[in-house]
């Protein structure tokens, strides 16, 4: 096999190239020729094809994502904005945080364990490359129906993969989501979020500056992993006699990643590194072109120095390989020795593969022959940009007109029907306990986890001295996004914002993972455009900038796209984690308040989905100005010690939130349906901008005055009561005779003139039953 070098490319301008098979369009190929003034070599074509792929170039989404910058709210908190590996936010005391979500949907469908594992690995390296120590991960997940055979194939593997990688890396898993919907059956969503912390001075960027600085590749050897993962390349298209088709499955080695973390932090703290970049999608192609493009502009690379796991790899394959656990650092020559010594200490292979130059070109050699000679910007940043056509789907009106009214969807009428409904909803897959999942994740490691599942947000202490910490929540009700993508994105944002505020942290910044179907479908593209517009508008209104994120397109099975799923992550700061608000109520006599207004809101609700399999209607737009006020109340109440507990109200409405609080504390409560309110609406409506707070009696007047001053509805709906177990109940519950502890009961008064109750034990049994029953079968 002869090497397609530059001279050869010049000499054979008409040599046919398999660019279409690499996903490169005719006009894109022509553009590459125009840029270079000749045909690309096969190595150059490989680089352009991966870097100009949807995944790397954001060519369909770019024009929309620009809104995140254009509508950026005024804030001093953002130290590094969109465009870097991850945004960086100032949290005070000289500390900074970086966080980001990424998707690994398709690889996780093919090979659930490795797909999910390498998804975690990839996002962790992104965080590391900013100079931060990764401190926590989260995993928003979506699957087909729980009882579908393929879900039983995919879900356990994904969970084992997320856990297997994260646990072995020593990163606590502090939250996530597990959502089931039929549209995800052939296309599960595996999103992974990582949070990292650093001192301001430790922030690093991916740029290769300083002429003469060395380019050092360190970490795992390069193998054939993931070739064809980023674009559609099959290696034999390069050369019919070439090596056999490479595996597109990337295998993760969390142990290597752990060494990489420690080694990277050590070289950064020793001040040895000028610029740093992780190797993710598009591997060396991406790292070298981005580093060069962001820096002085020129770089010379000797590709044959790259340590290989498989000696038969061609240069094109090495350029595109997505082998995991690799990083690239720009190191001044006088520090190289020390850099290498630290790598040796951690048993990490490090190789000097190149040098920063002043040529303005990225030149790559292979055994003395020049195989790449390109302006790096054209590869990394000036890729194609599409204005994809989009239009509102024809079916959108009919979908929105199909409102879940009482006439359209029969509602429970009697106290006994509502009693039954609570047990059913508590056990519904989307509302059931996710402990089957989260018990497989280490939430304790690093010793700074203050809150993890099932709390509303994950919270970690950043500074042991002061108690400074951060809280992160991710959310998305994709059914609402389907009914109205603009509103749905804002709804997701509001929910994540609320989950952070409920725990007592001040929301600061946003990341997102936009999971959609094919951008070539104008109706999907409309969903996407609307969601981005909604999220950008929403972030402006809430004052929380988008710091980064990820777009995942082509999530569909055949022609059927997934529900539009803009997962939103919100990060908040808390000056002292000691004052966090937990979700478990505890003190007898504490008052239970609902903050916010409850209306007849069932469009996109869990009840309509679970009980009727229905999705329709037009959700009431979330009022973000009001959401902001709610956030202020939650924060002020936490600061002033007015709350003993708090929990947001979202999927499954007030009733589900109350059930979760009772389960978390194992203490009962007496609740009443407010006068003039329909019990069913009170229990299961999903009106936005609500939370439950638990207020000690002696704080009540201060609390109600605070809400009154802000014009915010606060209605007392109950009281914590561990002593409801009277002899009247002994008959109806199984084991109140057993021991002296009274059985804990959740009691609801004023239900069509009656009182209904559940024992916390029966609610727990329902809550814990569903996932194990299916997944352990």
């Amino acid at each position, binding site marked *: 096999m002869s090497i397609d070098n530059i001279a050869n490319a010049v000499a054979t301008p008409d040599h046919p190239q398999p660019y279409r098979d690499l996903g490169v369009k005719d006009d894109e190929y022509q553009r590459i020729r125009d840029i270079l003034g000749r045909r690309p070599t096969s190595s150059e074509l490989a680089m352009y094809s991966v870097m100009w792929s949807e995944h790397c170039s954001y060519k369909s989404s770019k024009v929309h994502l620009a809104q995140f910058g254009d509508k950026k709210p005024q804030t001093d908190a953002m130290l590094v904005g969109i465009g870097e590996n991850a945004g960086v936010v100032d949290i005070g005391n000289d500390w900074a945080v970086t966080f980001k979500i990424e998707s690994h949907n398709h690889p996780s469908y093919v090979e659930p364990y490795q797909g999910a594992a390498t998804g975690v690995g990839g996002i962790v390296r992104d965080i590391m490359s900013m100079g931060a120590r990764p401190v926590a991960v989260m995993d928003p997940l979506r699957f087909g129906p729980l009882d579908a055979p393929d879900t039983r194939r995919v879900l356990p593997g994904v969970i*084992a993969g997320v*856990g*297997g990688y994260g*646990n*072995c*890396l*020593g990163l606590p898993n502090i939250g996530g989501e597990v959502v089931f919907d039929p549209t995800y059956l052939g296309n599960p969503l595996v999103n992974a979020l990582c949070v990292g912390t650093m001192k301001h001075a430790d922030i690093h960027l991916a740029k290769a500056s300083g002429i003469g600085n060395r380019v050092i590749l360190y970490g795992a050897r390069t193998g054939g992993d993931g070739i064809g993962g980023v674009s559609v390349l099959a290696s034999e298209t390069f050369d019919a006699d070439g090596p056999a088709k490479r595996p597109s499955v990337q295998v993760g*080695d*969390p*142990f*290597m990643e*752990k*060494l990489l973390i420690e080694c990277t932090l050590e070289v950064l703290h020793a001040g040895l590194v000028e610029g740093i970049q992780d190797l993710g999608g598009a591997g060396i192609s991406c790292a070298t072109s981005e580093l060069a493009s962001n820096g002085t502009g020129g770089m010379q690379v000797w590709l044959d120095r790259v340590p290989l796991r498989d000696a038969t790899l061609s240069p094109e394959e090495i350029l595109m390989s997505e082998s995991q656990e690799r990083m690239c650092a720009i190191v001044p020559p006088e520090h190289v020795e020390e850099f290498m010594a630290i790598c040796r200490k*951690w*048993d990490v292979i490090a190789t000097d593969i190149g040098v920063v130059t002043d040529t303005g070109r990225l030149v790559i050699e292979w055994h003395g022959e020049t195989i790449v000679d390109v302006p790096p910007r054209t590869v990394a940043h000036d890729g194609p940009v599409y204005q994809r056509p989009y239009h509102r789907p024809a079916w959108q009106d009919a979908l929105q007109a199909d409102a879940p009214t009482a006439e359209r969807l029969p509602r429970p009428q009697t106290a006994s029907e509502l009693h039954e409904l609570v047990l059913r909803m508590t056990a519904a897959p989307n509302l059931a306990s996710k402990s089957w999942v*989260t*018990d*497989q*994740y*280490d*939430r*304790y*490691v*690093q*010793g*700074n*986890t*203050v809150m993890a599942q099932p709390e509303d947000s994950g919270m970690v*202490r950043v500074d*042991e001295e002061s108690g400074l910490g951060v809280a992160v929540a991710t959310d998305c009700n994709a059914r609402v996004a389907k009914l109205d993508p603009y509103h749905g994105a804002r709804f997701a944002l509001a929910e994540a914002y609320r989950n952070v505020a409920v725990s007592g942290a001040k929301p600061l910044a946003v990341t997102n993972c936009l999971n959609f179907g094919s951008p070539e479908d104008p109706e999907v593209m409309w969903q996407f455009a609307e969601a981005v517009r909604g999220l950008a508008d929403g972030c402006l209104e809430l004052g929380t900038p988008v710091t980064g994120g990820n777009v995942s397109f082509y999530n569909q099975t055949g022609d059927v796209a997934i529900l539009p799923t803009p997962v939103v992550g919100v990060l908040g700061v808390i000056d002292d*984690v*000691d004052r966090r608000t937990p979700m478990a109520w505890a003190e007898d006599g504490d008052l239970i308040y609902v903050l916010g207004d409850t209306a007849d809101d069932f469009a996109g609700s869990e009840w309509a989905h679970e009980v009727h399999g229905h999705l329709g209607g037009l959700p009431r737009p979330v009022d973000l100005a009001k959401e902001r006020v709610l956030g202020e109340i939650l924060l002020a109440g936490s600061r002033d010690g007015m709350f003993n507990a708090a929990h947001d109200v979202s999927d499954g409405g007030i009733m589900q939130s109350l059930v979760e609080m009772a389960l978390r504390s194992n203490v009962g409560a007496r609740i009443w349906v407010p006068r003039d309110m329909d019990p069913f609406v009170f229990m299961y409506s999903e009106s936005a901008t609500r939370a439950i707070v638990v207020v000690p009696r002696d704080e009540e007047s201060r609390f109600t005055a605070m809400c009154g001053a802000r014009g915010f509805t606060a209605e007392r709906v109950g009281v914590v009561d561990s002593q409801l177990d009277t002899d009247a109940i002994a008959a109806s519950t199984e084991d109140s005779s057993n021991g002296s502890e009274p059985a804990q009961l959740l009691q609801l008064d004023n239900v069509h003139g009656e009182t209904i109750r559940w024992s916390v034990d029966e609610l727990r049994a329902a809550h814990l039953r569903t996932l194990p029953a299916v997944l352990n079968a």
Partner: protein
Amino acid sequence: MTTLTGARIGVVTFPGSLDDRDAARAIRVAGGQAVALWHGDEDLQGVDAVVLPGGFSYGDYLRCGAIARFAPAMQTIIDKARGGMPVFGICNGFQILVESHLLPGALIRNDHQHFICRDQKLRIENTTSVWTRGFEFGDEIVVPLKNGEGGYIADEHTLDALEGEGRIMARYLDVNPNGSYRDIAGLVNERGNVAGMMPHPEHAVEPLTGPSLDGLTFFTSILSALASGVRA
């Protein structure tokens, strides 16, 4: 009260150790001085006792603890442990002690095949070792447990001997989380200086970050033993 400060307890970092910083924190919270030890150094810097922390040393790819056992630091530790130096292995550290044959038996994959993380109730059944002398016999404590290969096994003869000699340090209560024989969560050696346990007491030393403060007693036990010159 005896002063607990002054004692120096080493925490070994192997490649893949994860809870090393946490073990050091627990030692500090208990009033001791934590000394970072590196797996590649035979020199233990004159520490009074050693904690082998949790994690996945060498990825735990072969068997948990199997490769770490051969680290240079371990050669010294094995020697000194035989001479009476207190050593406490937590989770992966327990696995390393078992692989080093400082404690009997073996730890195998959890019977349910999953990694499990839970707040685990334990009963303390040995109060004579330097690591547990601060407990009362029968104390019930709750500390985090997190492992994939925590199933303790040994032959009947060994199990009977362990029970007969009062060397079962802690047993699982309510739930046996991994299929361990006779609900064994932790052990001590004959001499009482070497202890190993799958659950993580170092994650139960602060009110905000653990389910209880019960774990602290392991660390105050050793510090008070060292301070009062108690020898194993």
